[in-house]
């Protein structure tokens, strides 16, 4: 529970109010261009590589090791890519379809959530 909400409930009557945290913390979060600019700033945070770049890296690594590389590389979610065109990851058909279905907002939330779980 947020500290300010906790204080407010203590001042009022906890019996009269029930605290409920919205499960989706990013429900009304807008994709401000400011945030995009910050996330694209390598001085602030390491850029996430796109799925195509990761596939290419995996393929090249496997090729160098002389291993069979016919299995598609594990796709790492880069949900922010389409919404903000991070790393130039435009035009990926599947991703675009997903984004069209979700309006991009789910990707944004997912990206922010993943940011929190990354080791910084």
């Amino acid at each position, binding site marked *: 529970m947020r500290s300010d909400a906790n204080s407010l409930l203590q001042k009022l009557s906890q019996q009269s109010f029930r605290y409920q945290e919205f499960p989706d913390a990013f429900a009304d979060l807008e994709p*401000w261009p400011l945030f995009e600019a*910050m996330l694209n700033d390598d001085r*602030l945070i390491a850029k996430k590589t796109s799925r195509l770049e990761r596939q290419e890296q995996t393929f090249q690594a496997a090729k160098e090791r002389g291993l069979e590389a016919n299995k598609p590389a594990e796709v790492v979610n880069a949900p922010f890519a389409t919404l903000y065109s991070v790393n130039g990851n435009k035009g990926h058909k599947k991703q675009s379809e997903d984004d069209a279905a979700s309006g991009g907002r789910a990707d944004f939330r997912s990206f*922010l959530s993943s940011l929190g779980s990354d080791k910084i």
Partner: protein
Amino acid sequence: MTLILCHSAKGGVGTTFLAAQLAIRFAQAGRQVTAIDGSGQDSLKLHFGILPTQFAPNWSKSHTMPLVMSNVSLIDAHLDIREEYFLNSLRRGDLAREKGAIIIVDINSADRNLFRDLYDLADLHICPISPDPAALVSLSQLGGDQRTTELEKTVYVFNMQDDRHKLSRHSYRFVKELFDTRLVGTVRRDQAVFEALAMFEPLTKIAPNSVALSDLDELAQSILNMSELSDMPNFPDSDTSPSDPQAVNPSGSRVAS
């Protein structure tokens, strides 16, 4: 002894305010606290109720003419803080000898060089953030050659939060996700902070019910609870490694023990 730097890459985010308020709360928690104004703006004292025409002693006089407000020793060190004798004094722990002592240095946002010079010496760096786009963007410049999110000694405080404004709410969430556990506190915006400053009175007296007060209490406790603060490796406590008894300050007088 623990050395804490308060510095933001952008001015106007409440760095001096947080430095002063944390110093007062650390002192209230029983710590020996020295607050050093290294900003050159001479504004740290205002948060202790000192008038603009009244001056905190500089470092060389602080040992013989200590100024203690709210149980915090105030020193204006902007003329000395780059000098080797001052840095050596910091290293030796001359300014705070009690076990658990804390030194807080307020550094001007424009003074990146001083910040980088002291960062290696410091145990903790507190970087205030405000929901101001310019302040948010400036975060990228904080680390110099290092990515801001990879600064190991740095924690962040979201200051002047105002849930009534959309950008403030969204900025907070963004910053929270960006820095995760390194965002150690939030202080809500309250005009009473400025009103107290204008009256040269403590915030606790002008607005004892200010939301900022409870946030500051929580923030100070959160920082004190950091395990690093109880056992900082950089600076020996006086009971385990006494500082040089022959140390002298620039004026030539013996350093008070």
